[in-house]
């Protein structure tokens, strides 16, 4: 059976629902003839605002629902599909709620936060559509643990071989053996690169360092170099995988805190509106 993404869940049920909701809101907005001009305080403005606020609370509830493994209210796929589509529809509902009245105030802050949350969410959807395929292409049947084991084997082999090489070459190999690492910092995880990787340095500087090898040493040198290249390949593969995992994770570090910031701004918005009614 072909894999169906959450976007196609139940024959696009939530896509249709979101489109219907959006069209309904847009039609009401066009039909509505507000006194003065459209804004959040007309009856339609209050209606759209209430729908928007309920949607925001419901979208936040997804974070709770997805952790309730024993819940029987729909499937998590269904919830996520609805989360994505209704979250996108929220942009239209809330924009119409504002009546395009923006300014330097807490109300616009809530609006911008809403846009930011939906924007990061859509970025997350984009990532989840792209990155898993890239992960499969990168790793194939390999696993990260498998790569680590392979690198360790290579290390042993390299260590044994490199002993027959002169100090200058051995130093390169030794640095690669002792100093190579995966992850460890935000930039290394997110970029999938380690500009100070000793293995990469060893590979780059190998030609220079091994120029004067002759005879048996040259042969051992070549073999060591081949092993180093293989090791570097494995490291790059592992780093790409770490990067993919970091990317799948990173957007949530914006999406989730922004969502709670939005919840706070929503509270501020509603309080501000009704405290000075």
């Amino acid at each position: 059976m072909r894999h169906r993404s959450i976007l196609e869940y139940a024959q696009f049920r939530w896509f249709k629902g979101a489109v219907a909701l959006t069209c309904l809101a847009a039609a009401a907005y066009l039909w509505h003839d507000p006194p003065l001009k459209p804004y959040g305080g007309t009856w339609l403005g209050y209606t759209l605002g209430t729908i928007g606020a309920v949607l925001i609370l419901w979208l936040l509830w997804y974070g709770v629902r997805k952790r309730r493994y024993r819940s029987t209210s729909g499937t998590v796929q269904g919830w996520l599909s609805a989360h994505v589509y209704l979250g996108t529809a929220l942009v239209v509902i809330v924009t119409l709620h504002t009546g395009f009245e923006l300014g330097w105030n807490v109300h616009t802050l809530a609006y911008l936060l809403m846009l930011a949350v939906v924007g990061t969410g859509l970025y997350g959807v984009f990532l989840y559509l792209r990155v898993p395929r890239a992960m499969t292409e990168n790793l194939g049947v390999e696993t990260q643990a498998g790569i680590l084991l392979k690198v360790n084997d290579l290390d042993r082999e390299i260590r044994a071989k490199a002993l027959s090489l002169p100090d200058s070459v051995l130093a390169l190999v030794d640095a690669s053996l002792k100093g190579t690492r995966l992850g460890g910092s935000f930039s290394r995880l997110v970029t999938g690169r380690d500009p100070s990787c000793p293995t990469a340095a060893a590979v780059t500087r190998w030609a220079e360092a091994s120029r004067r090898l002759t005879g048996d040493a040259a042969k051992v040198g070549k073999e060591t170099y081949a092993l180093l290249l293989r090791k570097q390949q494995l490291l790059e593969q592992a780093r790409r995988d770490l990067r993919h995992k970091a990317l799948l994770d990173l957007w949530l570090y914006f999406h989730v805190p922004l969502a709670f910031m939005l919840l706070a701004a929503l509270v501020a918005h509603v309080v501000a509106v009704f405290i000075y009614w």
Partner: protein
Amino acid sequence: MKVLLTIRAGGRVQSKKPVSADWLRVGRNASCEIHLPDPRVALEQGMVTRPDEGFMYVAGEAGASDISRKGVRQVRLAPGEPVDIGPYRMELLPPPSADYDAAIQLDLVRPLEAASDLATRSSQLTLGSLGLTKRGAAWLWALIVLGLFVALPSGRVLDLPWRDAAKVSTFGDRFWNPGPLMLAHQPIAQDCGACHETAFERVKDRTCLECHARIGKHLAPHAQPAGLFEGARCASCHREHKGVKATHRDDDGFCVACHRDLRSRSAGAAALDASDFARDHPAFRLSLPGEAGVRRVRMGVDAPVEASNLTFPHDVHLAPEGVRSPVQGRMKLECRGCHQPDAARQGFLPVSMAKHCQECHALQFEPAVTAREVPHGKVSDALVVIEEFYANLALQGVPDSFRKAFGVPGEGLLRRVGEPTPSERESALKLAQRKARQVGEEMLEVRVCKTCHAVTRAPGHSPATPEWRIAPVRASTEWMPQARFSHRAHPHVKCAECHDVATSKRSADVAMPSIKTCRGCHGGSRPAEGRITSNCLLCHGFHDTRYPWDPLFTPRSPQRASGRVADAR
């Protein structure tokens, strides 16, 4: 030489083999006879040689400080005198059997620490392992927003302990302001509490009336039956935070809510229903001054006639070939020759006899003799001037004037030689009086006044001593008082496009434009091709501007209210 080579590590023998060569190279290189597989050992660290007597260790590579005594390049090997080679300790032992020249034992005294593998060095493989936290950030930001935009600003209105801080803070309640205030309210824009006094309560009318104390009523008492505007607040119509110029609602729904079906709201309403200027608006009503005061006349229904009591044919004055002016000769009159805009350029100044008519319509009574004119105004004043003129002529007139005026030869009484006799006096007086009466009568009834005015003889006077009444002039100056029409706003429209007077022969003709004329350019409140979108408030104000809305007003009795409605019809 042949030696038995033993390499030990951690007290255990790792290898034990005979080696025979002329010399024994020591190093980590696999080709070394004494092969020490340790990265701390140089590739070819040194060499064991056997010159004539005994064994020597010679350091090989530069910098390989592997000999116990520093600075020594070579050292003699002897049992009990070990030599350090990197982490190894080399010692010469006596030969185990006659086959050997010696035995060499190497002990790994400083074993290589187990190299950490990649997995142990790579412990931070996820963002979570770096100490980043979603939950912490969520709490932090949510609390910052709640603190800055809820807790701090509500200090004033909820009377919280940081009440004073909230007042001066840049993060006071001003970030709650949803939109710009109208210009007049901007001085108090930073002080939300000026209007928003109590939390979770709408702004009270009392708050508005604190400043707008003298605003009075918004509705004539008769237009406000009890209950019709019940519950209405200042803010029902006057919206704030909707831009610097928006002072009130100006949508048609504002008016049409009642005026679509006015009778259902107010049984005594005088106005007809209206909901849209283009589709549903009654014909205009005109205000026509009459004997009984101003009448309101519906155009197209009542065929309005202006009873101005003036005779004025527009067609004669606007004749394409012009009019003959005694001063300027033939000249073409324009509308603005008589209808001059007022200072606001909205309407026009009243037409004035002295300014606009008298140059042609001179009030001369004896043009053959004098250019003098009677004053425009009271009949008696004019008659007195005439009487005095002829009396003076009878007394002092020169023969030429005397003859022209009285039609008989002679001269003024006082010009004659000698004292006039009583009969001469009497006859001169009679001559003057008769002539004055004749001229006055002719001026009023035939020649001058009659041209424009309705002149009648007052009843109860003998034909010999008549008195006249000139009908009071009631030219309308405010035809449509309920409409806010500005001529200034219509400078590109020619007068005749709205006011068709070129063929009007009578002053009774009303040349006010009908609603059809206006609809030629003005549409309703919905935009339409080729029409100016025109809502109610483009032409109308809110009821009677003399009575600003007073929410505290209650009519004294229903009778009083409905009685006034009848008056207004």
